[in-house]
């Protein structure tokens, strides 16, 4: 089962409410996405901690239903 852009956006927004999210379906196959996420929660965190917050919002779906998600995180100043 693949995830839609809306499902990914909803999952991220549920745990990072202020997130500005831009998702692209890289291959048009509902399976390879890139996500650019901007939020205040990333401020002063390392890149690893920032990406972990995104992964946590996706829970077990990451690596299962969702095969490939390229993540770019940006702090919101």
């Amino acid at each position, binding site marked *: 089962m693949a995830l839609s852009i809306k499902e990914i956006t909803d999952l991220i927004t549920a745990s990072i409410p202020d997130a500005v999210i831009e998702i692209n379906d890289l291959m048009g196959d509902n399976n390879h996405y890139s996500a650019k996420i901007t939020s205040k929660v990333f401020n002063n965190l390392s890149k*690893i901690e920032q*990406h972990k917050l995104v*992964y946590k919002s996706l829970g077990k779906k*990451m690596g299962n239903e969702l095969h490939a998600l390229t993540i*770019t995180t940006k702090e919101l100043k």
Partner: protein
Amino acid sequence: MNINEEIKELINKNDVCLFMKGTPDNPQCGFSMAVSNILKHLEVDFKGINILENNNLRQGIKDFSDWPTIPQLYVKQEFVGGSDIVKELFENGELKELLKQKFLIKTT
């Protein structure tokens, strides 16, 4: 030896240790290939660990790093990141700087 001890031993033995799908010469996933190619480009000696050969390791490394995806790069026992972070650090020059600071690539 349990899987966590095995992983610790791998990252202790190898200053630059890449947990990946496939091998550096025959990567089985585009993300693993990208990181492997970056390390080759920087001419750093690294050990590629093929997690597809060992199911315990495949899950074990995700739990060990608290990181749900492969590849995962360790430098001097420290988790550097997955493919997105490694690519970002490569593009902004920080990865090269880190490897220089740890004396893993030539400084000239």
